[in-house]
């Protein structure tokens, strides 16, 4: 066994177990991911003669997945640059939702607000939620991670967990300990159109339509702007980046800012889509989004988005089925995928081997 730990790093696989693991890693993940849709698809076909229920799950899953994708981007950005799991990221997303709900009240957005007012109000809220979450994320980095940058890895992870709890309690102080309903300003569940028995609601369209431009903006920013180049350089080699005149601290702050901004947007979409917020939403969202980031290959932006959509679909299927699985098993399903991926394919679907994966 010890030999295999070391042998895995060499290109030549001599050990039989390693070869099996390699195959499982290569194709197993895709196969395992297909198990649930295929199983329930066959069941739908035999029970109802159409794939419409599965289709509905997939549509809902994609819109949920859009939210997880935005949160997962924050994980993957931060991990890519300082190899730290920002454990408090889920809570940053939660704060984004709370800011949204609070600002709804300030602006007086209700179910009866007209289209013009809605667009203006939502844009304002979006900007505010993004700024709040972004600033919060930068603050967390400054207080909890920067002083520990050269300490053993355990240390920043522990402060991250600590901050996650602090923010949850901020949430409790803000809206209390139980889930709170907020006005369904866009009437998210109203059906917009239907294709072959699969209904697409306003919320679904909004979630995907808001996510795609944000992701495109982010990727363009990272690929083309000066700061984006600095980020990539820092991710590759912080020492060399510093020597080349890049302000590493600023670059890391910008990374956290971008991650927070995405989480804030996700918070707004979540609040609009689910119309319920509570202090604990960030914990589950954080773990699901982290699973998404790992599934796509941590450090890889496209992977995070892909992983977000996949995990969204899986979660939705599990949430809506009563046979074998059900909403009470969703967490177990997601975590099982997380463990399987980490063990058999730590590099994810699109990622490179990371140092963590050894």
């Amino acid at each position, binding site marked *: *066994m*010890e030999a295999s*730990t*070391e042998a*895995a790093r060499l290109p030549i696989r001599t050990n039989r177990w390693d070869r099996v693991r390699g195959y499982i890693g290569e194709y197993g993940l895709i196969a395992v991911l297909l198990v649930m849709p295929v199983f329930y698809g066959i069941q739908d076909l035999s029970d109802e003669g159409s794939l419409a229920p599965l289709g509905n799950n997939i549509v809902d899953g994609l819109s949920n997945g859009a939210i997880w994708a935005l949160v997962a981007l924050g994980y993957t950005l931060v991990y890519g640059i*300082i*190899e*730290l*799991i920002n454990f408090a990221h889920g809570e940053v997303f939660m704060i984004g939702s709370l800011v949204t709900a609070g600002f709804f009240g300030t602006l007086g957005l209700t179910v009866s607000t007209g289209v013009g007012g809605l667009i203006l109000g939502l844009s304002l809220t979006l900007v505010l939620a993004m700024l709040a979450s972004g600033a919060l994320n930068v603050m967390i980095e400054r*207080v*909890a991670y920067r*002083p*520990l*940058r*050269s*300490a*053993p*890895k*355990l*240390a*920043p*992870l*522990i*402060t991250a*967990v*600590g*901050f*996650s*709890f*602090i923010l*949850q*309690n*901020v949430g*409790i*102080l803000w809206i209390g*300990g139980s889930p709170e309903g907020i006005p369904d300003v866009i009437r998210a569940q109203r059906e917009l159109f239907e294709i072959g028995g699969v209904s697409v609601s306003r919320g679904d369209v909004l979630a995907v339509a808001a996510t795609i431009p944000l992701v495109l903006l982010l990727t363009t920013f990272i690929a083309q702007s000066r700061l984006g180049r600095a980020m990539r350089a820092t991710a590759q080699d*912080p*020492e060399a980046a*510093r020597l080349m005149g890049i302000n*590493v601290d600023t670059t890391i702050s910008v990374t956290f800012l971008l991650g927070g901004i995405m989480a804030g947007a996700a918070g707004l979409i979540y609040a609009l889509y689910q119309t319920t917020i509570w202090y604990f939403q960030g*914990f589950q969202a954080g*773990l699901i989004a*982290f699973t998404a980031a*790992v599934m796509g290959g941590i450090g890889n932006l496209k992977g995070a988005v892909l992983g977000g959509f996949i995990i969204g679909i899986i979660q939705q299927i599990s949430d809506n089925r009563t046979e074998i699985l059900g909403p*009470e*098993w969703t*967490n*177990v399903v997601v*975590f*099982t995928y*997380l*463990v399987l991926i*980490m*063990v058999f394919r*730590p590099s994810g679907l699109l990622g490179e081997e990371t*140092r*963590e*994966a*050894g």
Partner: protein
Amino acid sequence: MTKTAPALRRPGMKTDTRTLAVLGAALVVTLWMADQIEMDLFMAFVLWVLIAIRVVLHENRVALIGTLVALAIWAIVLPFFQDSGGGFIEDATQALALTVMALGLNIIVGFAGLLDLGYVAFYALGALTTGWFMSGFFAGAGGGEGFSLLVGEPASNLPGVHFNFLMVLLIAVVVTTIAGMLIGLPTLRLRGDYIAIVTLAFGEIVGRLVINGDTIHLFGEQLTNGRQGITPIDKIDLPFLEPFSGLELRPWYWVALALVGVTLFVNYRLRDSRLGRAWIALREDEVAAASMGVPLVKTKLLAYGTGAAFGGMAGVFLGSYLNTVNADQFQFSFSIFILAMVILGGLGSIEGVMLGAIVLSFINYNLIPDVFNDYPSKVGLDFDLSELSFGIFGFLLVIMMVLRPEGLIPERRRKIELTEGVGAGDTAFGGGETIQEVRA
């Protein structure tokens, strides 16, 4: 190592005035705290005297051993000075049980350096073992008549499975050791934060299984009672320590104390053993340890297994003591609660972790709900402090890690490790590597 050694040597008697001032302040705090948590003031004073002797004469070996023995005796006779029906003894027993858990987690996180965020899984398994083998949960056992082994009157006539406490303890230790190793297996190839996430996922999976266990049926019996919980649980049944009841808590206290004693003994022996040195080597530098012949797989699995066993032990005790095995006890926040004890006391430091566990459990079960709970409303704020207890622990984690990462009572080696990296120049990234470079 040689570089930092002089800094660690205390200048001896020179700090006398400072030490005395601190001790004086400690006396006031100790007496005030003791008063708040309903502890006997005379016993609190004795505790302070023992600590003072130990601090002042810390270089004298005889005084050191003497105070340790005195401390043990102090802990044993403490219940005689207290009201036996609740209050302080109740919280103290809980604190001792949590100490066992914290010491177990300390083996995994403190000794071997594997951050385990799912420690609650072992508490759950231990408590479940109690639920299965010390209650009327399996109502069909023994043809509905019940099945019992080495237990006394009331339990032996009831339906369900009733084993002796010590046997259940043994079963739980075996079960959790195996579970710990199984959970450890997938993390073997991973390092750092990935281990934390995988263990966290396992903790959540076990927690979920307990919650949903009432829908899982094995051999015609459901796995758990879900959120309703398995209750009542048999009282501990041991000779010479009768009776165990909700009104007479002293025997519970002594059993918990004995468990702590066993845990301490095992911890000290392990730390100074070949295995303990292997853990420390692993923690400091995995690659170097492997190349020096430390068997990574065995060492890591043993760390998970031993750590988990103590979680199971404490789980069995708490299951019987709290008289219920309830799914809501096994949440992620509990893992963090135990982790906070280890961090507060000092990663890897046995004395520190013990102190951290006792302090934090008194803060959580006594000071926050009973003493400070209405302070916010006194200054005009509209919330109870008990809602925020985990925010307080989170805050504690951040503060400790940033300001005093080595904990209240640091372990010497760990302190060097943790402080060497911080402020070691501009080497900003990949902490682990930085330290290895400095070391090399």
